[in-house]
């Protein structure tokens, strides 16, 4: 295990190694060592260090004229150590993925805890004071929000809303049940426990309940960490994850309630009543605060079209403010964040540029994954650090009760819920829901917050909490994956959402609404429809700038898909090829009911659905694409990056001078500035390529056929192995070769007679006169165009891994 030793080395002399890693002067290390030893965040040490340093400086002053090199570690200590922790976390994350076998067996969260344990142990061995890393303030104000925002912003709203009832049932009733069941039984066990009278008999009911309410909440961080790895189907994922998010309100209320009364002693019925009210306020208030900030954020983003750079910032800042505002009133910050993210997203996404969207996505993913890593490492460190008081009875009873309560809660609640659900939860589902009830760092942080004076058993609580966390994360987290496979629980299909599915989702929505209306009763389809209409009519107008507010969902989806495919095409080396419109044309022919030989098409109502039609479609596609391009362009204009279009144009001019004999051709190419390389990028086209390219190899036979669809870049990049022929040769041998062109052209000419102006663009797509083009010309003409394509898209490489993060996409 080289990894372990690596981390050990890392931990042993953290500051020094960190310095080495960051390539600070090696000489410095000599000076650094004595200070490095005292570099713990412990305050008393700092004092002496300060004095020491001052003395040093004074000393220097008298002896030397000017300290050429001085050391002031204390000055940078806090940010430096934070950076070191983040670096450690990132390196660990990096390291795990380099060991393929390990990450397949053990979930990352477990590994991170182990690393944390090691680091904590080494700090302790070095005789240092372990820093209070999992401090509650740090945890709740810095580490938790990114994870929750990430979850909220990318929350799959549709399944979430469809299962909201079930989720709420689990989150509210389930958590309440867990808290009271565990608390009550724990208290009972403590009372009847004879062996250790001095300790456990002191424990009263309220502290027990408080402890139970802390321990009973399923933790979103742990659930996310484990469930993202097992790729469970969407329903189960949203059930467990939704529960873990929404039970925050219950936990907050129970926690504050019991904490409040643990000192006072008695709880009256009135207090219970107030608790219920408080719960409603905490939950609804949290959602409201979040929604208000979400709407504010959406509204702000309406006006950012001239300052694209700070667009992502609004999303983050507003969300964070929502969280802080909710926390300020002891409302549920998690629910506020979720609501904020979910509310703002559809509007913000319509307003901001594509790049900003990518930025938001990556920033959220980055922050949340670093936070998550840090949380697990800190959990390990805190375990080593914390003063423990191990009580066998208490700990074992807690673990067992947690499991029992969870199973009973899930089974009981499912029994009730299944009466109302259409898609019943099977026994397998119940098992996974029960088994997926992982506890995590939120519980620990809440336990850490407890006041030692009010709760003399705080250490025991913390120990028990840690044990439960470790048990769930290690035992359940590690076994859930094999169990999912063993039980053959349905996994998540990784299929991309297709346009057909989108069409039919919408169709079904309207259909069901219509049927409900005919039936004359108003079910949830009816109300959803009403809400949608309201949203479209009023809200979108206020929150979304420009014409996009009127865009129906289907068209928006289509545009998004189009955009993605365009980017994919560019990223996957579309620039290598001359973007010829040919393959797509052929494929469009396949579905166009226009061919004279097919008798049926004559019977159909639209015999003139021909080239003109096709060209019209292409025009639409092109204009759509152009719109997205313009969004991209406007982004660049405000980042002071040289406008790639400008750049491309200059390059083009240089090229132009070089190839005077091809001047005319290049001028034709200029058209691509105004209509930037649209036809090959439009989705129908590239889809056609993808589809048709799939089954084509670069066999000479097919090249001979000319207008066969084998020459596209997509196919080529998909099968680099089969590309024994250099790409350019393939390119030239295919449809641009004179005979193939003429074949197509004749075919086209046959149609051209009866239709029409749609062909205006045609000559531009096909450089050179139809039959005159030589291969050389094709080659040279291709070059500037390739250049164009590379330059006209603002950084295809930046979008390079667009498809990599596909699972992150909603």
């Amino acid at each position, binding site marked *: 295990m080289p990894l372990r030793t690596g981390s050990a080395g890392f931990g042993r002399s953290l500051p020094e190694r960190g310095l080495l890693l960051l390539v600070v002067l090696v000489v410095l290390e000599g000076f650094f060592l004595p200070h490095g030893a005292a570099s713990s965040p412990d305050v008393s040490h700092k004092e002496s260090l300060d004095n020491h340093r001052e003395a040093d400086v004074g000393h220097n002053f008298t002896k030397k004229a000017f300290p050429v090199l001085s050391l002031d570690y204390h000055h940078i200590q806090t940010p430096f150590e934070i950076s070191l922790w983040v670096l450690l976390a990132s390196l660990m994350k990096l390291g795990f993925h380099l060991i393929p076998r390990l990450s397949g067996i053990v979930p990352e969260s477990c590994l991170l805890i182990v690393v944390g344990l090691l680091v904590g142990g080494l700090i302790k061995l070095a005789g240092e004071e372990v820093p209070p890393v999992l401090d509650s303030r740090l945890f709740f104000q810095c580490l938790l929000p990114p994870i929750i925002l990430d979850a909220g912003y990318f929350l799959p709203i549709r399944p979430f809303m469809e299962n909201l009832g079930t989720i709420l049932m689990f989150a509210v009733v389930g958590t309440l049940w867990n808290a009271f069941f565990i608390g009550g039984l724990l208290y009972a066990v403590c009372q009847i426990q004879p062996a250790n009278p001095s300790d456990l008999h002191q424990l009263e009911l309220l502290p027990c309940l408080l402890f139970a309410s802390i321990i009973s909440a399923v933790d979103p961080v742990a659930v996310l960490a484990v469930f993202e790895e097992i790729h469970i189907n969407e329903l189960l994922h949203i059930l467990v994850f939704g529960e873990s998010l929404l039970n925050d309100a219950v936990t907050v209320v129970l926690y504050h309630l019991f904490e409040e009364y643990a000192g006072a002693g008695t709880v009256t019925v009135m207090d219970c009543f107030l608790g219920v009210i408080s719960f409603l306020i905490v939950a609804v208030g949290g959602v409201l605060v979040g929604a208000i900030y979400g709407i504010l954020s959406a509204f702000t983003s309406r006006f950012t079209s001239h300052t694209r750079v700070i667009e992502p910032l609004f999303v983050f800042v507003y969300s964070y403010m929502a969280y802080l505002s909710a926390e300020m009133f002891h409302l549920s910050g998690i629910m506020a964040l979720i609501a904020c993210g979910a509310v703002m997203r559809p509007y913000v996404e319509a307003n901001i540029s594509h790049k900003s969207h990518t930025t938001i996505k990556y920033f959220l993913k980055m922050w949340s994954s670093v936070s998550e890593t840090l949380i697990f490492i800190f959990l390990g460190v805190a375990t080593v650090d914390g003063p423990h008081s191990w009580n066998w009875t208490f700990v074992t009873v807690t673990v067992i009760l947690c499991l029992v309560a969870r199973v009973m809660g899930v089974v009981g609640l499912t029994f009730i819920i299944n009466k109302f659900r259409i898609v*019943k939860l099977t026994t397998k589902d119940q098992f996974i829901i029960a088994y997926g009830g992982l506890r995590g760092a939120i519980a620990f942080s809440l336990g850490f917050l407890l006041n030692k004076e009010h709760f003399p058993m705080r250490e025991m609580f913390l120990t028990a909490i840690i044990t439960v966390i470790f048990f769930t994360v290690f035992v359940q987290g590690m076994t859930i994956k094999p169990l999912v496979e063993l039980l053959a629980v349905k996994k998540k299909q990784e299929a991309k959402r297709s346009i057909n599915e989108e*069409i039919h989702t919408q169709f*079904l929505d309207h259909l069901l609404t*219509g049927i409900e209306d*005919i039936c004359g009763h108003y079910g949830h389809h009816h109300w959803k429809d009403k809400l949608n209409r309201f949203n479209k009519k009023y809200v979108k107008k206020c929150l979304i700038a420009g014409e996009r507010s009127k865009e129906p969902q289907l068209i928006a989806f289509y545009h998004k898909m189009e955009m993605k495919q365009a980017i994919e095409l560019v990223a996957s080396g579309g620039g290598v090829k001359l973007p010829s419109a040919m393959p797509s044309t052929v494929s469009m022919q396949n*579905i166009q009911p226009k061919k004279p030989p097919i008798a049926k098409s004559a019977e159909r109502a639209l015999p003139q659905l021909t080239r003109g039609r096709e060209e019209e479609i292409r025009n639409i596609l092109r204009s*759509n694409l152009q719109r997205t391009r313009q969004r991209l362009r406007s982004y660049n204009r405000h980042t002071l990056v040289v406008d790639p279009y400008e750049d491309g144009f200059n390059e083009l001019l240089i090229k132009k001078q070089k190839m005077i004999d091809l001047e005319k051709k290049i001028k034709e190419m200029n058209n691509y500035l105004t209509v930037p390389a649209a036809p090959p990028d439009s*989705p129908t086209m590239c889809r056609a390529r993808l589809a048709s390219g799939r089954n084509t190899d670069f066999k000479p036979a097919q090249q001979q056929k000319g207008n066969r669809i084998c020459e596209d870049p997509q196919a080529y990049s998909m099968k680099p192995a089969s590309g024994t022929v250099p790409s350019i040769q393939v390119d030239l041998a295919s449809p641009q070769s004179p005979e193939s062109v003429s074949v197509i052209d004749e075919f086209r000419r046959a149609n051209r007679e009866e239709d029409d102006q749609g062909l205006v663009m045609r000559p531009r797509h096909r450089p050179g006169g139809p039959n005159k083009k030589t291969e050389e010309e094709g080659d040279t003409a291709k070059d500037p165009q390739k250049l164009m394509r590379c330059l006209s898209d603002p950084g295809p490489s930046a979008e390079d891994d667009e498809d990599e993060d596909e699972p992150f996409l909603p």
Partner: protein
Amino acid sequence: MGASQTRSESVYQELMDKTGFSLEQIKNLKKRFLQLSGNEETISRENLDAIPALANNPIRKQIIEAFFDKRNQRSSEVGHLEEIGFEQFVMVMSHFRPPALRTSVEEREVMRKEKLQFLFNMHDTDNDGVITLVEYRKVVEELLSKSGAIGHEAARAIADAAMLEVASTNVPDMAPDDFYEGITFEHFEQILKGLEMESRMHIRFLDVDTSTMRCGKSTS
């Protein structure tokens, strides 16, 4: 009176067996039917067209047409009816029944096929077993019909893209001069596999009699 009561009971019983609705549901539907038809025996297209809540539904025409389509009556007949009686009404409605409590895999499969067939029939207006591009375009156009000019423009592009997607997923290796005639039912099943129609295409039919409440709402 008593005789007619038992007669209608037996009619209901027959319908229950045919459609799987409960007696209460059928009674509720009957009430609604009479309300829509103005206490007539049959319903015409105009009756359905007049439902105020439907006015904003972009696919209103198709929904109404589905009620008058003989293919949706679980018989092998083809064609369109001018008027439908209560039985036909309930038959169409039965396509939207939620799946029963315990269903075997085969039953679910049958149910899924039925529901998909219903959708397919809505698209396949000329009943040749194939959704052609023209028909599909019409569907998308209807779907976007409420969004004005941009909708009309984009609808064609979307339908084309969708059709191309179907063609490319189902018949990936197509010669350039092949012609993809349209979506057959098998292909239709294939492309909508991910949507889990059997569990999604349903509405809740009321079990209890809430006619007073309903009347109040529907007249408002």
